[in-house]
């Protein structure tokens, strides 16, 4: 337990920019950008520093009593670092993207302030060492996301915002009730391996599990608690990226991971038979989300339902309660983030540069914006599970894990969802590359990059797509997402 300040520092790299930005004038564009980028880079550097030592088995911990029985606890373990690394990296790219995307729009200080606050909350969620600390940041995330969802300030945004709040606050209530109940029985609950709840009776355990996971499932968009997510698509593209890849949905999934792995412990979940119903719900969500995605004409809505479906792979992984499946779930946390953010970046760029919003308008997009569409295609193929993109790795581990856990039906779920994934992603890719753009007969050859939009809209998706590809190609490397996920699971199972 060394470097107690390090977790705080990681938190501060986004919290301090958030506070400072709030008080910046609307026109302080340069300062704002500098602070944003500096914070993001600083966080990445700190994370990189910690990766090495945590891999070697070290943990960082910061404990700060608020009132008796309520400690504020930050702890950096391998799982925390997995999530922090993902969000830190994606934050940097999203920031770059957002600066380009928003351009000269209004209320930028407010936007970036809450944006940084969201990331701070996500970091806090990742680093939380106890249920209550987790809850504190989880709520902070809810609240700091709302102004972003309603950023456009029109009626539709507020309707979406209302929906978002109604769902998430309902979820928090359930979560808090579960926490209060459990802590009333066993005292403060910290995320230590193999759970602490062994002494409780089955009924209480079941209800508390339902309350906790039910509360988290709202953010994780598990059916039937998912409806806020497609509605929130009215928000600007960087916010969508944040919601779907960096922060919100991930926070829910991560919370479920923590509850299953570190509060109850996989052993207890298995013994009490709590995993199978959860896995079933997750599977249902996977299929339902895919089916709904198929029916969407709006690209962003299609991506949104795709998220509903894809995030539940994570839940499915841990719910199956076997080590291999858990690796699949954990690694998908990262992989889904990388691929989905790529897709949203691209969708935003398409909308911004070519004003493409509908599936039908994709014709020839690949010729007009080749780099963007290349990134899009890689991510989409990854989502489908085509090797060697990262998505394949996740699905492979999930499938093997399902078999190992004796749940053969998982294979069918995976296969079915992959087919559906293909059904709703391939037409997009096909139209982009193989259908000529409407009415573009004349016009000579223009340089490749000049056809793309602002570089800030191109670089991030290309980068994430590259990383997604790399994560699949170099999955065997120790510090790859897969390697890291195996490390976590190995430690969790004491292997």
């Amino acid at each position, binding site marked *: 337990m060394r470097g107690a300040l390090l977790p705080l520092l990681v938190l501060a790299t986004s919290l301090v920019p958030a506070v400072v930005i709030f008080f910046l004038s609307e026109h302080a564009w340069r300062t704002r950008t500098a602070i944003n980028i500096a914070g993001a880079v600083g966080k990445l550097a700190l994370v990189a520093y910690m990766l090495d030592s945590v891999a070697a088995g070290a943990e960082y911990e910061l404990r700060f009593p608020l*009132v008796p029985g309520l400690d504020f606890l930050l702890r950096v373990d391998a799982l925390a670092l997995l999530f922090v690394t993902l969000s830190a990296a994606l934050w940097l790219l999203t920031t770059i993207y957002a600066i380009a995307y928003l351009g000269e729009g209004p209320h930028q200080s407010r936007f970036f302030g809450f944006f940084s606050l969201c990331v701070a909350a996500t970091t806090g969620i990742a680093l939380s060492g106890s249920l209550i600390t987790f809850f504190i940041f989880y709520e902070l995330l809810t609240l700091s996301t709302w102004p972003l969802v309603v950023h456009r300030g029109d009626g539709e945004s507020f309707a979406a915002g209302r929906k978002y709040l109604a769902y998430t606050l309902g979820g928090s209530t359930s979560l808090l009730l579960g926490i*209060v109940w459990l802590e*009333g029985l066993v005292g403060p609950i910290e995320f230590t391996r193999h759970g602490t709840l062994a002494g409780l009776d089955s009924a209480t355990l079941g209800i508390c599990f339902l309350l906790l996971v039910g509360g988290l499932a709202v953010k994780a968009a598990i059916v039937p608690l998912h409806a806020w997510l497609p509605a929130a698509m009215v928000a600007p593209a960087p916010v969508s990226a944040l919601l779907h890849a960096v922060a919100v949905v991930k926070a829910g999934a991560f919370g479920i991971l923590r509850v299953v792995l570190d509060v109850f412990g996989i052993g207890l979940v298995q013994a009490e038979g709590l995993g199978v119903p959860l896995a079933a719900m997750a599977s249902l969500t996977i299929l339902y989300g895919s089916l709904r995605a198929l029916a969407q004409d709006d690209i962003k809505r299609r991506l949104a339902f795709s998220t509903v479906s894809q995030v539940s792979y994570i839940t499915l992984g841990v719910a199956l309660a076997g080590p291999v499946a858990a690796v699949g779930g954990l690694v998908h946390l990262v992989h889904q983030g990388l691929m989905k953010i790529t897709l949203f970046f691209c969708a935003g760029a398409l909308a911004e540069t070519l004003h493409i919003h509908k599936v039908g308008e994709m014709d020839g997009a690949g010729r007009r914006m080749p780099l963007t569409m290349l990134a899009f295609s890689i991510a989409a193929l990854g989502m489908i599970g085509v090797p060697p993109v990262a998505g394949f790795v996740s699905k492979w581990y999930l499938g093997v894990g399902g078999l190992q856990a004796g749940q053969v039906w998982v294979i069918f779920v995976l296969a079915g969802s992959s087919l559906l994934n293909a059904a709703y992603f391939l037409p997009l890719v096909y139209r982009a590359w193989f259908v000529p753009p409407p009415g573009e007969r004349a016009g000579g050859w223009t340089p490749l990059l000049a056809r793309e939009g602002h570089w800030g809209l191109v670089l991030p998706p290309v980068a994430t797509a590259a990383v997604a590809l790399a994560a699949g190609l170099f999955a065997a490397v120790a510090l790859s997402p897969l390697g890291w996920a195996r490390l976590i699971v190995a430690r969790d199972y004491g292997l």
Partner: protein
Amino acid sequence: MPPVAAPEAGFPWIVLAILLPLAGMVAALPLGRHARALALLLIPAGLVVALLLAAQVWREGEVTYALGGWTPPLGIALRADGFSAVMVVTTAVVLLGVALFAQSSFRAPPGEETRAALLFWALLLGLWGALNAAFLGNDLFNLYVALELLTLAAVPMASLEARAETLAAALRYLFFALAGSVLYLLGAVLLYGAYGTLDITLLAERAGPEPVTWAAAALMTAGLLAKTALFPLHLWLPPAHAGAPAAASAVLSALVVKASFFLVLRLWFDALPGVMTAAAGQLLAALGAGAILFGSVLALHQVRMKLLVAYSTVAQLGYLFLMVPLAGGGGAAQPWDAGAWSGGVLHAVSHAFAKAAMFLAAGLFLRAAGHDRIAELRGMGAALPMVTLAFGLAGLSLLGLPPSGGFIAKWLLLTTAMASGQWWWALVMFAGGLLAAGYVFRALTPLLARTETPVLPGRPVPRHQQWAVLGLALCSVALGVAPLMPFALLQVGRPEAAEEGIG
């Protein structure tokens, strides 16, 4: 029995805490147009005194002081325990914020004396003295006088604008307050008849569970509840608090209702610890629950911002009474009592900051827009970002969401509710939190709406007023980040019914 002046160790900060504001009020009248300057001088000084008193309590434990050297039961004693110290400090901090806010709105033109400018500051000082007298008194009759002092300072504050509807509201407030203090006095009379003293410490030794004591406790509680505006005696509060000038509303809603709440706890936990029955505790909490649900639903339906904030006070006051059965009222000491006790008090404190900030913010919106109809405040968020932020932060505390004082308070109350097996109160708190989210966001939504043309405030809003609002809101949030010190201070002299600690 000649004066048994047992000079207390250390300087009598406890006396000064009451004396300073009251002397200021007296001096304000002949000073006339300099009353504002006097108040602005005294309020920071009073904060220092309050902090010194708190430090004294922290170091030396409970502070008592026999006035005139006449010890109870013949004389009157002042007593400061952790709870009083926390309330005295809270009062001073809130007043500092309010004074900062009001120093430009209640300011006479040079060389002239105006009604509002003189009376606001004089009443504010009087109110402050009355609050401190109520927090520090240890004699039930003296507390009656302090309550009347409070009423007579608060009622004119509510009607300072002297419009027809504020006059009616103030009159209604006066009736409730007067009826409340008379009932309180009636109870005190019975106690004197039964035990020959009104000193709280002596009463605790003498009073036993007998019919007379129950009758007295019931009457006093009913009177105090009318003053606290606990459901269903809340009818006077919303019009009175919403009709006052912003600075006055802030003080009324944040502090004045807390004084009678404070006395309810003093009565049950300090004066008559052995008298309360479990059923009485549950009844109080049930009224609190009614207030939470009813007040929140009414707040949801308000069209005007200030009324919304006022109804939210009705709701938030309900939480305070949930602590009574949780903190061991009506039962033997339990390990969780300390948590509930602190939770309730922290709620009172954080609500004081949050509500003051909200009323001041609502006042600024009113000033900038010329009205406070929520639906028509569109775009105000862009015009007054700092105020909107403050409103949001204060709302955070009302919702009981982290990181805020409201969260810590609610957390303590929730865990104790579960630990004591009274899970139904936890459910009420959850429902209250959701309803609060409903009305807070209903107020925030139009503020953040984007308008075609940027909204410009009809009247400029001074920077220092915005800072005052934000400062108060931040206090309420800061309580969620660093509640340990107030928590520990609260344990000094905590009544026995709520002894032992959790965790």
